[in-house]
């Protein structure tokens, strides 16, 4: 039985306009870390809030643990949520913050201490119990928010971009902590983010959304190596997949697959590439330029290389893309289609 399920879930904010969420169907797997990934306005947060019970759906059903919960208030749904700002109660100590859900559910006073200490030790914040939220660092606040979420032993965790308020350096370690936390606790988790790196790193499965519609639901490998449409193809991966229109298809290939001919051993499509910009990022090089000759003459292309020592600005070189790395999309529907023959000249 899926922990969280939605059936044709739709949310329309303004009559006559496209819904924020349109006919979303999903089924979570027990214990998985499912990521809702999409740009702002894609509906991912609205979807999460509907599951939480903070927004009412326009149509469709939400099921938690096999039970339709559309009419249930958030408190009745056995979910826990971590907000982007963590929403810690500023006037309560860390201890009281974590204990609040227990108090609200009328758990006996005597049991509070035990459960709070259990949750606190799980997240390593036992020493902070007497502090107030304003005395804590960003990372510590995240841990308190998680402790507060887990103390109720919910069926589902819902996390709404919890890493966005942390500065870049902190984000990586906080992300790792979240992953460790999930492995330890094993609760089904739904995680909302616009950061595709986070999604790829953390997700067991990723649901890519755009304009309220699910574009693809699959493992990181699925969405990266076999994108369902051009949106998914370009949203994941940085720099995004190179796309070019050829006849009635759109052909795509990732920057890391566009390399100097000498480094390609498989059957490959050759290109003539004029280098216009070189960025050295330390661990890799991002080279951009234009193709010369053939049907794609003048097309801007990105390449990602582990070494670009021999390339010079303005120079023209022979590059190639392995045949099997080419992706094909239907030109009108932009959806993925089977590979076919195309003429490049």
């Amino acid at each position, binding site marked *: 039985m899926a922990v969280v399920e939605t059936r044709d879930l739709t949310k329309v904010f303004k009559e006559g306009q496209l819904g924020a969420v349109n006919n979303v169907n999903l089924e979570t797997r027990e214990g998985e870390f499912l990521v809702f990934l999409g740009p702002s306005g894609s509906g991912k947060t609205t979807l999460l809030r509907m599951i939480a019970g*903070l927004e009412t759906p326009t149509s469709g059903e939400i099921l938690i643990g096999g039970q339709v919960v559309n009419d249930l208030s*958030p408190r009745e749904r056995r979910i826990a*949520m971590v907000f982007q700002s963590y929403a810690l*109660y500023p006037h309560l100590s860390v201890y009281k913050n974590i204990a*609040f*859900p227990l108090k609200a559910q009328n758990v006996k006073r005597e049991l509070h201490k035990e459960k709070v200490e259990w949750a606190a030790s799980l997240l390593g914040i036992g020493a902070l119990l007497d502090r107030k939220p304003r005395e804590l660092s960003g990372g510590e606040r995240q841990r308190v928010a998680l402790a507060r979420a887990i103390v109720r032993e919910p069926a589902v965790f819902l996390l709404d971009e919890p890493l966005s308020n942390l500065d870049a350096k902190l984000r990586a370690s906080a992300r790792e902590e979240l992953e460790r936390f999930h492995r330890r606790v094993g609760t089904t988790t739904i995680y909302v983010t616009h950061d595709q790196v986070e999604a790829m790193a953390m997700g067991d499965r990723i649901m890519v959304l755009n304009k309220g519609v699910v574009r693809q639901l699959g493992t990181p490998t699925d969405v990266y190596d076999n994108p369902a449409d051009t949106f998914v193809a370009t949203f994941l991966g940085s720099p995004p997949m190179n796309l070019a229109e050829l006849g009635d298809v759109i052909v795509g290939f990732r920057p890391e697959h566009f390399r100097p001919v000498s480094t390609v051993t498989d059957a490959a499509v050759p290109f003539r590439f004029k280098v216009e910009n070189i960025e050295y990022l330390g661990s890799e090089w991002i080279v951009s330029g234009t193709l010369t000759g053939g049907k794609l003459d003048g097309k801007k292309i990105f390449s990602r290389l582990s070494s670009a020592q021999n390339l010079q600005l303005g120079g023209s070189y022979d590059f190639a893309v392995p045949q099997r790395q080419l992706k094909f999309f239907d030109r009108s529907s932009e959806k993925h289609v089977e590979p076919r023959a195309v003429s490049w000249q």
Partner: protein
Amino acid sequence: MAVARSKIKSIGAAQSPLLGAAMFAPAVLYILLLVGGPFLLAIFYAFSDARIGNAEMHFVGLENFRSILQSPSFRVAIRNSFVFTICSQIIVTVGANILAISLEKAFRGRGLIRFLILLPWVAPIALGAIGWKWILDSIYSVITWVLVAVHIYKPFSAPMWLGEPRLAIAAVLLVHSWRLMPFSTVILLAGRTAIPKDIPEAAAVDGAGFWRTQLQIVIPMMRPIISVAVLFGLIFTFTDMTVVYILTAGGPFDSTQTLPSLAFAMGIQGSDLAAGAAISLFLVPLLVILAYFMLRVAHRAEVN
């Protein structure tokens, strides 16, 4: 840019302290002369035998205070001052919180409702009080009419609302609460909108129902704002003489006198400036305490 910076420094440093003082001085001078001075004068009068129209004045030590403390109307006045202030503040704080909760979410007509509920506060105090005097008139009171119409009272047997001490006290309390309610509500509303939206949502997800969220999360978070509203409310009510003056003139039989209204009655109407000053000085201790708490709230807000 370095040149510009040093230019600013030389201008700023040279002009600021003097200019600042010059800009500030008129206001300070005015306040010192017309608040500080009279304040000291009030203390001075309290120890004298000053009267209106009498140019002479002698030092009489604690005589005024002695006679005041012995007079029964003074004791009633002190009691009333505290009762009116504290009771009305309790009523107002509870009511204003409920009203602020009701007004938080936008709805059609909210602007009009806000206008209507603000009326008691924005209308000049005396005029609102007069309105109530008409409503509580001994013969033509609309309240009497309604009570007679539903047969709670027989015609002509309803009480005189402002004529019986207990009812008069209730009436003064009512008018004070009525006047203060909008002020408190509006300040509390501002405080509520300052609370981030996801805090009540987090409480809802944590399992808190409506009242628990309000009482254990939202209202405690509003403590600084509630303090401001309460402290101002206490000051406004404690130092007011208008409501009593208009509604009951201190009667019946001095039962609704307060410190300020008694000070006025004795000092101006009774021409005994010294007694009036002495009575009004009794306002100071509570005001000092309230001032202390105000400063604490402001200081805490700065620190946070």
